[in-house]
């Protein structure tokens, strides 16, 4: 079975990229083995206490909690990108594994397809 790595690199709300990436991941997980990696500003999608109601947008960060029900268990972020933004994994809405740069490159290399959002 193909293994797909989804990479989320954009902050939420400024673009629809993150929401679209999550939708694609939820759909893709029905057919293939999927993992999810947050790089750069993408990690802001997981920040706790989001409230986008006044923007007229859905706070989709809660949807990340559904990933385990879809069998998506491999969730990662960049340790250095977290530190750069003065964040810790405890600040995030779901548990993710923080990796160093070398491990992230290996993660990319170990998948058949990388889809970036």
């Amino acid at each position, binding site marked *: 079975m193909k293994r797909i790595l989804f990479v989320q690199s954009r902050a939420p709300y400024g673009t629809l990229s993150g929401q679209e990436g999550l939708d694609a991941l939820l759909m893709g997980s029905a057919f293939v083995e999927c993992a999810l990696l947050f*790089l750069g500003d993408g990690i802001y999608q997981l920040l706790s206490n989001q409230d986008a109601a006044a923007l007229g947008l859905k706070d989709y960060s809660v949807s990340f909690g559904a990933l385990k029900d879809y069998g998506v268990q491999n969730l990662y972020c960049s340790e250095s990108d977290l530190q750069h933004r003065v964040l810790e994994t405890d600040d995030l809405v779901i548990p993710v594994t923080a990796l160093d740069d070398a491990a992230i*490159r*290996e993660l*990319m*290399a170990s998948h*058949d397809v*990388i889809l*970036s959002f």
Partner: protein
Amino acid sequence: MAAKILHTFNKSPISPVLDSCLRFTGEDDALVLLEDGVYTATAAWGVKLDELIDAGVPVYVIKIDVDARGLANRLIEDVQVIEYDGFVDLCANYEVVKSWF
């Protein structure tokens, strides 16, 4: 032997995405610069590629994007100019492609 990744970058070199791209490009990988990414291979920005080039990582630029921007005579040394068919070959020869944008 770890899989080889073909990285592509298509934004202006002032984009922070370039730094992410370079961070995760390993010695066995290759980098293709396309669209606005080709500006990276000029004198103003080429220093960002030095580390990769010194490590022997192949760096390619897409010819029509270079020509469109008037950069044919302004490219740094050690980048290879390729056309779309060469790009297709590269995609086929690397196990996985990571698009940075």
